[in-house]
């Protein structure tokens, strides 16, 4: 834990109740549907006929060996990576082409990056309020009030006036989560959110994510943190060589994986 820096309270499950968007009238079917998605990087076939359904409030953890297409899948869901074939639906609507429509969709899909990607020339508070002010057209006061609630929730309210480079990695990643939450997204994508962190900072970020999962946020998490997968996920997706090899509940997957490829992977990471 971070000692004096006010690590997030793992029991903060009953935080501000406006974190998770209200279930809209249209919102009945699954939130994210990935169907027959294919993608190539030149010669490399990185996504091979991917099918995945994520229901509302579900936490899906994507694990697997490096280069297996996990990050690419995660990034294609808000079209940071365009796909070559198949379709991706978010809340019943197909991903639009580049343009205003796509920007609107991205505002509803939160994204947390491995390297945080906080805006380096803006303070933490400005980072969190930028989207609500410029995209959601909220007033500055309203946006700042909400931002401070979120920063408080992730345990870094006292860092609000600092610049990203003045914060530790764990604090930066928590700020980045707050920045995504400020848009009140329907679903949050996490692309290896703890892989760039020092070991002692991993937990402070995972605690925030566990709290979010408990609050019913729909999450797709690419991670190597098996503890988080067991604790917070409803579904584990194992990807290797551009394919979804196994889809299972965490309990089943970690104790009794169905496929040889998954067993092999687990034996390599769980034995030391």
């Amino acid at each position, binding site marked *: 834990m971070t000692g004096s820096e006010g690590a997030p309270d793992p029991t903060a499950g009953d935080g501000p109740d406006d974190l998770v968007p209200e279930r809209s009238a249209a919102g009945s079917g699954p939130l994210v549907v990935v169907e027959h998605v294919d993608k190539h990087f030149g010669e490399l076939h990185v996504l091979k006929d991917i099918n995945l359904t994520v229901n509302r409030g579900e936490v899906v953890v994507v694990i697997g060996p490096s280069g297996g297409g996990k990050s690419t899948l995660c990034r294609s869901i*808000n079209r*940071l990576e365009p796909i070559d074939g198949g379709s991706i639906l978010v809340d019943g609507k197909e991903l639009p082409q*580049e*343009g*205003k429509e796509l*920007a*609107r969709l*991205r*505002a*509803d*899909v*939160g*994204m947390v*990056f491995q*390297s*945080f*990607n*906080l*805006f*380096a*020339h803006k303070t933490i508070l400005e980072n969190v309020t*930028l*989207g609500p002010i*410029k*995209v959601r057209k909220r007033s500055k006061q309203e946006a700042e009030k909400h931002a401070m609630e979120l920063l408080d929730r992730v345990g870094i309210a006292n860092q609000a006036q600092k*610049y990203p*480079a*003045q914060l530790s990695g764990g604090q930066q990643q928590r700020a*980045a989560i707050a*920045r*995504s939450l400020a*848009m009140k997204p329907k679903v949050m994508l996490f692309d290896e959110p703890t892989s760039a962190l020092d070991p002692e900072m991993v937990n402070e970020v995972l605690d925030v994510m566990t709290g979010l999962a408990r609050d019913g946020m729909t999450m797709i998490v690419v991670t190597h943190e098996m503890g988080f997968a067991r604790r917070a996920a409803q579904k584990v997706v194992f990807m290797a060589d551009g394919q979804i090899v196994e889809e299972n509940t965490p309990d089943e997957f970690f104790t009794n994986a169905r496929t040889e490829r998954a067993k092999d992977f687990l034996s390599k990471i769980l034995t030391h």
Partner: protein
Amino acid sequence: MFDFRPFFDNFDQILEGFWATVRLSALAAVLSMIFGTVLVSCRVSPIPVLRAFGTGYVNVLRNTPLTLVLLMCSLGLNDELALKFSGSNSTYYWWAVLGLSGYTAAFVCEALRSGINTVPLGQAEAARSIGLGFTQSLRIVILPQAFRAVIAPLGSVLIAMIKNSTVASAAGYAESASVMKDILDQPSFTSGAIPLFIGIAAGFMILTLPTGFFFGWLHKRMAVVR
């Protein structure tokens, strides 16, 4: 030989010339920054027509001698095509401003483009992921960081521009260099050319040295810490 009398005898005229230089370069500085920013936005835009325009503009202007650009403005556009800003001599001032700004903008654009290359790709991805469009990402996230990365090189571009403003004398605008030439052409002028050159050179340094120091200081102050 080192007789500074011609310099001080014509001091009023020289001051007037420098005032004309300042009026020309100050406005050209502002306009070239604006044009340059618009140009670089074109060059990185997702729209192919705009990208082609930006690339074409920069390659033409950057590879044309400034004398030609300014003569094209004054003799070509103003005199030949009668595209005049006003009936009086001030039309040459405005053409000089436009020509010098348009020329310098190509260099501002290229400096800014190298600045954009210093901004990590993740910054643009994060901007897009919170729903900012291309123009918003560029204006709010990318360009502010790009500018800060190239403040010192932009200072060099501006210094070059201030010195380049002497070329406007060829295009009918009476600034410091044309005043110097007038003095040298006076029938009464017999000696003291070197002191005159030194005096004019010092005048330019009074304009350019602080520009360089100011931009160097600003560069350090505004640097984005990553």
